[in-house]
């Protein structure tokens, strides 16, 4: 349970009994977990267990059948995607969704909401490469640069919770290192879906494992890393010691 002190901080996300999917097809069943303010959760599981659907459900892009999603005590389930973003959810999708006809800077401007353009410097401070490429088209970026742009664009909206769906997919190891380094310095609640389990566990303080749309394990990330049986059973991987 959150303490009185943590309730004052922003970014307390509670998911209770969430059943959701696409149309009548239910992917998530009675999903329940919560993330404390500034907590970092790694949402793990095999392919097709509902990780991306969980993220999409949080931002209101699926059909909800039951359950609630509360951010800092505010019920989000009745809100549109844009209202949820205004409430504090920032989403970096698996597909990155860079606007290819816009330049890097123009892509960033779309994430500013009502903030002044001077706020773009925050994005450039986090990812200096974006400043170098500010006049380039979104479709002309490397995968790593696209991911940086997608993350920076989401952060410019000043979310209290950042949802990252497989940000490292398809990136070179050195780029992964740099991206994770930047993400590790963010001072906000983060839910990370990632196939690179070792990196996800290094990043997170809590791990939530899904199977067939349900939470099958929740606990400290460090403990999960050492529990080979747990890792093998739910993820099918054995991490190096």
């Amino acid at each position, binding site marked *: 349970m959150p303490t009185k002190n943590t309730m004052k901080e922003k970014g307390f996300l509670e998911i209770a009994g969430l059943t959701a999917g696409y149309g009548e097809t239910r992917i998530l069943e009675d999903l329940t977990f919560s993330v404390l303010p500034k907590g970092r959760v790694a949402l793990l599981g095999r392919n097709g267990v509902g990780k991306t659907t969980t993220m999409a459900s949080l*931002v*209101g*892009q699926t059909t909800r059948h039951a359950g609630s999603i509360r951010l800092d005590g505010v019920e989000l389930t009745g809100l*549109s*995607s*844009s209202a949820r*973003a*205004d409430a504090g959810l920032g*989403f970096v*999708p698996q597909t990155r*969704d860079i*606007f*290819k*006809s*816009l*330049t890097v800077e*123009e892509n960033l*401007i*779309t*994430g*500013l*909401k009502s903030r002044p353009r001077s706020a773009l410097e*925050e*994005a450039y*401070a*986090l*990812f*200096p*490469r974006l400043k*170098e*490429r500010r*006049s*380039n*088209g979104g479709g*002309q*970026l*490397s995968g*790593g*640069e696209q991911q940086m742009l997608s993350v920076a*664009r*989401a*952060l410019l*909206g000043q979310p209290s919770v950042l949802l990252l769906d497989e940000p490292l997919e398809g990136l*070179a190891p*050195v*780029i992964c290192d*740099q*991206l994770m*380094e*930047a993400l590790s*310095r*963010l001072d906000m609640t983060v839910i990370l879906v990632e196939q690179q389990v070792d990196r996800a566990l290094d990043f997170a303080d809590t791990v939530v494992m899904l199977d067939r749309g349900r939470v099958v394990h929740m606990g400290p990330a460090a403990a999960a890393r050492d529990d080979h049986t747990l890792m093998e059973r739910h993820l099918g991987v054995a991490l190096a010691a």
Partner: protein
Amino acid sequence: MTAVESDKMTTNTSTLPHSRPALPRIVTDAMPVVVMAVGGLAAFWLFPNDLGLLTRILAAALFVMSLDMVLGYCGIATLGHAAMFGTGAYAAGIVAVNWVSDPLALLAVGGVAGGLIALATGALILHARGLTLLMLTIAVAQIVQEVANKARDWTGGSDGLSGIDPAPVLGLFRFDLYGRTSYLFALAVLIVGFLVARRIVRSPCGLACRGVREEPLRIAALGGSPRRYLVSMYAVAGVFAGIAGALTAITSGIVGLDSVGFSWSAEAMIMLVLGGTGRLYGAVIGTVAFMAIHHILASTDPFHWMLFIGLFLMGIVLFLPGGIASLSARVLPLVKGGR
């Protein structure tokens, strides 16, 4: 936020293509304006007997530019854009005949009328997409046309609204029989309209509209309302279309039902496709090309000119899918490569 060492990146940016030309932005920004101004003035001196046609081209270019704001920047397919043009034309005409004849005030009246009809209809129809939306835009134009037809006391019905006699521009420049003032006034309005429109499409709202065209869900997840952005841009484009209609009313002195007609909307779309969408200046190029070819062919072969227009359009769509304006993007690399 903390900096990540960019020099550690493995991507070699020097091998990647760049979206911006090597020319400074101020040059590329100024180029369309300079070309419009110089070309416009050159046409004024070269074709003094065709100023009526040239003035119609300028007003049409502003109208097609407004369509570009809707179609090129927002991806809203519409065949009813003439509703805004015609509403602006009739509003300016009615005000000119009954109350005020100052041309700048009439432009404002046309813009407000076009914007209001766009706002009202856009809020109603922009929840739809694709063919449904296309049908709804046609329906809106048909309704406006029928209203204009029935309101004979105000609009003149099928006879058209005549008797529009605008006052001198700024109280100084009287509209003359040769159409000189009309032409220069229309040229000035087009250039100012282009500059304002470019400012709008580069604003955060304009950029968000382009984002909506590509990926509406992403804009929503970033905290924006796709529909609100579309309705806003639709209304702004309506203002431009209304001003174009008012400009036509002022410079031609008459407003007819064809100004709200389906064919005018369709022709505007053809002009935009010819010139190239999503550039604004493509609208000007397409309008000049279409109306000039139309004028030349119709005067030489009044029975088959549409055939040639059709062939020309097919050629552009097949070999220059980005429109005539995309020609420079194709030719420049060849020129540079040849050096």
